[in-house]
């Protein structure tokens, strides 16, 4: 095994989570190496000519390395898990899943950070939370507040470039555009640096339906540039979006979509102390006496290397961070792998017989949505429900585009056969009149929903697969029914002539929002890390990314992942943490 020169900071993975912290630390003069398992694909070499190819990137998932997709799945702790290969996130490439994300970019609600307290305040005395207790829900407040992290959310918006209409600017609701912006967003001190994408036909129809239902639709904030006039605080100027339909699941052909690759790496590469090493697959964290001393990795030829350092930051995907910790014998008092959360899936399909939508005609993130049923925004309505239908939290409902035929051939209703003349007729007549809604349910963490090492499956280096145990329970089932019915009302108000879908909630291994597993907290007996992601058990070892999050939120998590990475960088640079004592932060 080759022993390499020591670095100040060793970062495992170079995706969304690793981008900000590696840039900030290298800029402060620390020697930083980022070890990325994937290849270094770029717009110039991989995402340009010939890359608008759905078969290549979406169907065959070229950016997702099958050897690294080491997941098994089961619904209950008593079951034997089976390999699961339906993953659409976890890209193995420089920039990670931020390269092929959709670009929907949000701040979490202020109450998301105190989700347990907020629910106790609203419902604690009424007995409405009994079903959560019965199912052993493991809700906990985050160890940080929205006010503390607000500056870091803003930093993401200006360093990576997030466009939107302000919904709440210092308490003023929709102060810039009276009919645009999420009126429920947490108060922001500063407007977005630019506006979101335009609306296409699908968005306009969705908007009509939402307004007819008395809701407050808005174009979702996007990490996709509206035009090329704006330059980030990192000095990166990205061209404007051209509205091609090759966005979610793709690297962007013109870099108009922000990512760790397109927005942060150009700045990092200017720094003498930053080194990016692609094709390096970390297989073990070597530790002694409660301190990490090095990581072992395989390069693209399978040759093992050992990289020593002073500070170690795990910035890979949630599954991989947890798997690596457990495989390295770091179980954090049994807290590593607990409280895994992802979306309970449910779906709604609609046909607009009298309206051509041409759902293929823009990126997925060109999307209107409503937050009227998200968080506790629909509390009054929910309190009218009979107790056996009551649920907490809610869902974002949106209208994605990017409906190309290669990804749409299974979108026919159950009364249409799946092959033959009737199938062909239905697809020919209706594909351009189709709208499928995004229902972003906020599922709960539970005591029995976990990540651990699978005892039966391991990869070519002997690393056991990450075993996902996840089920939906009463709250998810009730939420799915309620949200599905509201979404149906919305599309019918917009003129849908046929509506169908899966009204029940289903658990899957990966919903692309796969959070928890190394929960941040205030109590070492109930969490894996402190408020900065510093492991209680191993103070020079940090986790950043979705694995830290105690709750799922009703919004896409990527902006919060970037925010937590800036939050960690600040803690290290301002010496808010001590590398010999994870209890000693200021």
């Amino acid at each position, binding site marked *: 095994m080759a022993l390499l020169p020591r670095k100040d900071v060793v970062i495992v993975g170079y995706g969304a989570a690793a981008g900000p912290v590696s840039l900030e630390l290298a800029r402060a003069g620390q020697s930083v190496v980022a070890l990325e398992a994937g290849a270094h694909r770029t717009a110039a070499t991989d995402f340009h000519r010939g890359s608008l190819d759905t078969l290549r990137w979406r169907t065959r998932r070229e950016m997702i390395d099958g050897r690294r997709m080491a997941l098994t799945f089961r619904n209950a702790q008593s079951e034997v898990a089976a390999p699961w290969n339906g993953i659409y996130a976890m890209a193995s490439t420089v920039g990670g899943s931020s390269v092929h994300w959709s670009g929907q970019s949000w701040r979490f609600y202020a109450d998301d950070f105190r989700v347990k307290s907020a629910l106790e305040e609203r419902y604690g005395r009424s007995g409405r939370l009994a079903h959560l207790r019965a199912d052993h829900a493991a809700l906990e407040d985050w160890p940080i507040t929205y006010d503390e992290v607000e500056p870091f959310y803003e930093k993401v918006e200006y360093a990576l470039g997030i466009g939107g209409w302000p919904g709440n600017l210092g308490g003023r609701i929709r102060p810039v555009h009276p009919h645009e912006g999420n009126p429920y967003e947490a108060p922001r001190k500063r407007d977005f640096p630019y506006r979101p994408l335009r609306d296409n036909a699908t968005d306009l129809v969705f908007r009509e339906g939402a307004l007819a239902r008395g809701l407050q639709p808005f174009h979702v904030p996007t990490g996709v540039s509206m035009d090329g006039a704006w330059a980030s605080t990192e000095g990166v100027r990205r061209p404007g979006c051209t509205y091609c339909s090759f966005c979610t699941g793709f690297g962007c052909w013109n870099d108009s979509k922000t990512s760790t690759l397109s927005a942060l790496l150009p700045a990092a590469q200017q720094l003498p102390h930053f080194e990016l090493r692609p094709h390096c697959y970390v297989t073990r964290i070597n530790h002694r006496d409660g301190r990490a001393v090095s990581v072992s990795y395989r390069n693209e030829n399978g040759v093992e290397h050992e990289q020593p350092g002073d500070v170690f930051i795990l910035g890979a995907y949630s599954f991989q961070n947890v798997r690596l910790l457990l495989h390295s014998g770091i179980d954090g008092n049994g807290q590593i792998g607990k409280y895994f959360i992802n979306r309970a899936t449910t779906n709604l399909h609609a046909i607009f017989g009298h309206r*051509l939508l041409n759902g293929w005609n823009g990126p997925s993130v060109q999307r209107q949505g409503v937050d009227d049923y998200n968080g506790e925004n629909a509390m009054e309505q929910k309190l009218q429900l009979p107790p056996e239908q009551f649920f907490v939290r809610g869902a974002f409902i949106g209208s994605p585009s990017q409906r190309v035929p290669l990804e749409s051939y299974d979108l026919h209703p159950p009364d249409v056969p799946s092959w033959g003349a009737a199938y062909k007729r239905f697809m020919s007549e209706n594909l351009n009149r189709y709208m499928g809604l995004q229902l972003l349910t906020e599922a709960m963490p539970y005591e029995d929903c976990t990540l651990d090492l699978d005892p039966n499956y391991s990869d070519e280096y002997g690393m056991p697969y990450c075993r996902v145990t996840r089920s939906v329970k009463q709250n998810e089932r009730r939420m799915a029914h309620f949200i599905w019915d509201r979404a149906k009302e919305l599309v019918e108000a917009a003129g849908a002539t046929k509506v169908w879908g899966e009204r029940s909630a289903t658990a899957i291994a990966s919903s692309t929002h796969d959070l928890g597993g190394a929960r941040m907290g205030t109590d070492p007996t109930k969490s894996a890390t402190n408020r900065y992601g510093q492991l209680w058990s191993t103070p020079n070892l940090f986790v950043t990314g979705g694995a830290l999050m105690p709750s799922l939120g009703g919004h896409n998590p990527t902006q919060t992942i970037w925010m937590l990475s800036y939050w960690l960088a600040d803690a290290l640079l301002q010496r808010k943490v001590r590398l010999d004592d994870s209890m000693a932060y200021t």
Partner: protein
Amino acid sequence: MKPTRRTLLKLVGAGAAAVVLTQLDARAPLPAPGARLVALTPHEAAMVEAIGARIWPGSPSDPGAREAGTVRYIDLALAGALAEHLDTYRRALRELDAASRAQHRAPFAALDDSEQDALLGALSLGHLASVREGPAFFGLVRTHTLEGLFADPLHGGNRDLAGWRAVGYPGPFYAIGPDEQQRSDESELPYRSLDDL
């Protein structure tokens, strides 16, 4: 009754017969000009093509999977990205053909449409006991046929953009304007493939 090669010859004048036959003779595979099979045997390819033609049927005025050359996509993919499925294809096609010979005393590709539909329906529901993993195999052929229909022609199928034309998808584009994005009239946009960009 379906037109056969014989009845067609009777129906049309001799001069037009050759043209009509190349378009309508549903029993002859239609490989792309100059294309050679790389994974499947000619007999297997004829079966895969016949199955595709029942999944997404076609006619001269309304091309289907056969006319779109999805068998070419599948043949290439089974030699490359989908090679892991070649053994399944080989075994299941052999078993399906045996079931066809047992029921109809004819190979599958020679059956008429309704006979093929009946066999495929039984296959997809797991009612053909002689084909192991019948529903899984049918799901595989269906998926691969539709991939061949809707993937860019550079992968071997979707000939003349027949798959995209059938559903009104104009193909990839680098940029699109607001009027095109918001329009609701039924006129078709120009069709193009990656090769045209």
